């Protein structure tokens, strides 16, 4: 187990290095010119050269990449800025934004809580809704409730998030006035209290959860129908167990195993930001941050957000594999 984890973590680091290299060199392969972006309106050859020297754009790309990675690897971070104006960028140093000079790590730290709340709340919502609907549908297969939930799932999968989100926003905030307009200040649970916090997040949660809930309904239903046809379910009934024990202890346990995998990966993916939902409800999370970074060709910010999101995906993969081995005794970690 310990050796397995160490090997997986080394693999994870390798994956992250590859991702960082791809992102870095892909960025420079585009016609973007950060020096022009930084020097702003009164650009001439002299100021551009100055910017190039300050940011190290005049050095070979490999050297620039090495310097960037040094900030992530070396415990002391690295030194950035022009000569005479040098400052330390402490570990983990993702550099400073070309756009506004703010250290990228600080921006990520500021944006992450909103993304975390959004992802976790939505995850709880879609997991509960999806599994319950799927379970009921499977147990009442062919009945009205089954057809209803399959229909709802189809609706959920095919309804574009951006339309659904704006629809909710228009209906409950603009038209009915049940919920105040989203105010970024309310994203922080501990400073504004649970009521405002809930009001801020409830619509984003529903928006984000819709597609996932629909998918999980379908997966749970299909898995549960398969499982209830298994021989070991017949064995459980033949023992004289009551139907509740058969369904929940013997059936659901097997049916939910694949869900654990998907759930881990989905949540891991969302911790890197939910772009559309954050955009609709003006949540200043990682999704919004990454959109802004990409639109403004802000390389340090792009690198930062890509790597940060990738860490969660890679970790989620490891967690899911370990969990799977815990749930299913047939799976051996090797």
């Amino acid at each position, binding site marked *: 187990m310990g050796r397995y984890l160490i090997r997986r973590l080394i693999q994870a680091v390798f994956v992250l290095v590859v991702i960082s290299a791809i992102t870095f060199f892909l960025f420079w392969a585009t016609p973007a010119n950060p020096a022009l972006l930084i020097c702003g309106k009164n650009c001439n050859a002299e100021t551009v050269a100055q910017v190039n020297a300050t940011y190290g754009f005049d050095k070979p790309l490999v050297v620039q990449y090495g310097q960037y990675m040094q900030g992530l690897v070396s415990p002391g971070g690295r030194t950035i800025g022009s000569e005479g104006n040098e400052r330390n960028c402490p570990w983990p140093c993702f550099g400073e934004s070309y756009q506004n000079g703010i250290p990228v790590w600080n921006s990520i730290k500021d944006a992450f809580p909103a993304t975390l709340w959004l992802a976790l709340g939505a995850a709880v919502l879609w997991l509960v809704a999806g599994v319950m609907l799927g379970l009921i549908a499977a147990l009442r297969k062919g009945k009205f409730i089954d057809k209803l939930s399959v229909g709802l799932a189809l609706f959920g999968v095919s309804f574009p998030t951006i339309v659904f989100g704006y629809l909710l926003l228009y209906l409950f905030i603009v038209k009915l006035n049940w919920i105040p307009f989203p105010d970024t200040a309310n994203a922080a649970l501990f400073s504004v209290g649970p009521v405002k916090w809930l009001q801020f997040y409830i619509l984003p949660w529903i928006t984000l959860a819709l597609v996932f809930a629909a998918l999980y309904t379908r997966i749970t239903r299909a898995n549960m129908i398969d499982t209830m046809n298994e021989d*070991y379910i*017949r*064995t459980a009934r*033949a*023992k*004289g167990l*009551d139907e509740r024990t058969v369904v929940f202890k013997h059936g659901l346990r*097997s049916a939910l195993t694949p869900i654990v995998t998907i759930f881990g990966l989905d949540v891991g993916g969302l911790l890197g930001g939910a772009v559309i939902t954050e955009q609709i409800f003006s949540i200043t999370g990682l999704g919004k941050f990454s959109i802004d970074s990409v639109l403004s060709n802000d390389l340090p910010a792009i690198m930062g957000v890509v790597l940060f999101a990738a860490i969660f995906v890679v970790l989620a993969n490891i967690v899911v594999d370990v969990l799977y081995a815990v*749930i299913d005794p*047939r799976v051996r970690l090797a």
Partner: protein
Amino acid sequence: MTESVTSAPPADTRAGKPFLEVKDLQVHFPTDDGMVRAVNGLNFTLERGKTLGIVGESGSGKSVSSLAIMGLHKGSKAKVTGEIWLDGAELVGMSVPEMRALRGQQVAMIFQDPLSAMHPFFRVGDQLTEAFLVHNDAPKAVAKKRAIELLDRVGIPSPDKRFFDYPHQFSGGMRQRAMIAMALMCDPSLLIADEPTTALDVTVQAQILDLMKDLQKEFNSAIILITHDLGVVAKMTENVVVMYGGRVVESGNVRDIFYRPEMPYTWGLLGSIPRVNRSGDGRLKSIRGTPPSLINLPKGCPFQPRCDYQEHVEGANCSTELPELLQIGQEQHRVRCHIKSEERRQLFTEQIKPSL
């Protein structure tokens, strides 16, 4: 219809009633394609301590009948009619909670493939104790002790350690033993074994069958053995029911079926047993054609489309008239065939027996 096999003289029966009596059992499944008539009028009786073999190819209604006795069709779409009397209680009309109290307790079942029949996520020991605890209000330690005892009894080495293993850590033979131990947890008086040795290799098969015989003596339980393996039937049973297309086509004691079979389908089954010392070109005789669709059963004899002996029928039409299951001779040997009994005997001795 009067089809029945009596396993033993009614010696230890209450008020002359057999321990298990199945009367005109019918199991039909409505499907989108039509009604699947899986079992059409099954009758047999069985006493404690005796073994009844139900033989037939896939889809002949063997397993469906046994599931009906377990009441496992209740709550599904299957339509079960007829009567099943077990120790004075009628099972077909019994409510689900009542049936549940019997399952595992009085009637237990050994399933065909123990790998898929045991839950992969639970320890073997826990699956055994669960079977005990559901019917007995006893502490877990008692259940555990009983489980280890039974695992030992069915021949699993170091059962106190194996108790904590998962099914996938057992070999095929050990899983089947564990499955048998699980079925015996509550001392059932009726044990239904659905192809208990089909998934096992022959040496293990012999061990398992011996074990079942020993346990039967020990617990005086009645066993219904469902199989398509006539070798197993010969070794284990006193009486045999041969099923085809959801109907009994021949029944009797095991010697009648093996030495004096009269139904062409039984001949076919006997002819398809592989034998090391078989003479001739060494090819197995298969029964031509395929089993009938249970949705569109032939109007007459269910075996008619595959029967090679129809020219011997006089005064009846195999494709339109269903022959009755009639008793022949003195014993409980019954046959469903339009061919006259004398002629069947002659056919068997002249044409079939030499090639067996």
